[in-house]
């Protein structure tokens, strides 16, 4: 199993969640985060904003679904056809085990 963590624009969250639902991945958790990227934040006039609001969504999927999930998030989260700075990042990390609390069953 793999955990996919995506940091995306807050205004794109609904689109990404809808795209994931249609692709067959309903289970998602999201949280508000703040951060900056390679561009060292955003400079508007004299002021530099280096803690930009983003949303982090995370989901755990089977190894074989990884490409589909990444693709789905990428398509939905990209602004315009070419994308722009600040569209976000996707991180993937391994998961050893998953348990469902209500049934106590191991596995997704």
């Amino acid at each position: 199993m793999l955990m996919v963590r995506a940091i995306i624009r807050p205004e794109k969250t609904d689109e990404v969640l809808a795209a994931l639902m249609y692709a067959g991945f309903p289970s998602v958790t999201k949280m508000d985060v703040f951060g900056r990227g390679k561009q060292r934040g955003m400079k508007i006039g004299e002021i530099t904003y280096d803690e930009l609001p983003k949303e982090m969504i995370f989901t755990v999927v089977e190894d074989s679904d990884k490409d589909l999930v990444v693709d789905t998030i990428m398509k939905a989260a990209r602004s315009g056809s070419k994308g722009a700075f600040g569209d976000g990042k996707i991180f993937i990390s391994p998961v050893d085990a998953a348990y469902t609390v209500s049934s106590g069953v191991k596995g997704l």
Partner: protein
Amino acid sequence: MKEILAVIRMNKMNATKKALSELGVASMTARKVIGRGKGKVDYLLLKGAEEGYEEAINQLSPGPKLIPKRMVQIVTRDEKVDEIVETLISVNQTGSPGDGKIFVLPISETIRVRTGETGEEALGDYADSE
């Protein structure tokens, strides 16, 4: 070292904290998250409701589409994992959908900021807390 990420019900937080500290696992990070599980949400229906179609509005369930939960993050030694997962399940289980999920992830390094200790000694001694 392993990281245990548990997404649980908001109202089970106190019971979980109590059970974990009785187990000798006092260190944890918790935060509020919102999310959804295996239940399907029909976005066409939502869109229709936003545009004001009566049929779509009538089919909507009264609940929100993302549900508030608590996410608990615990970093621990390999041998403690099973014990903690069992405790989390037994405390949080009500048997109905929405009890949450528990994920176990590998952690490659832990560093204690105060002293700069690395590895398992940075995790602290469980015997101290008992």
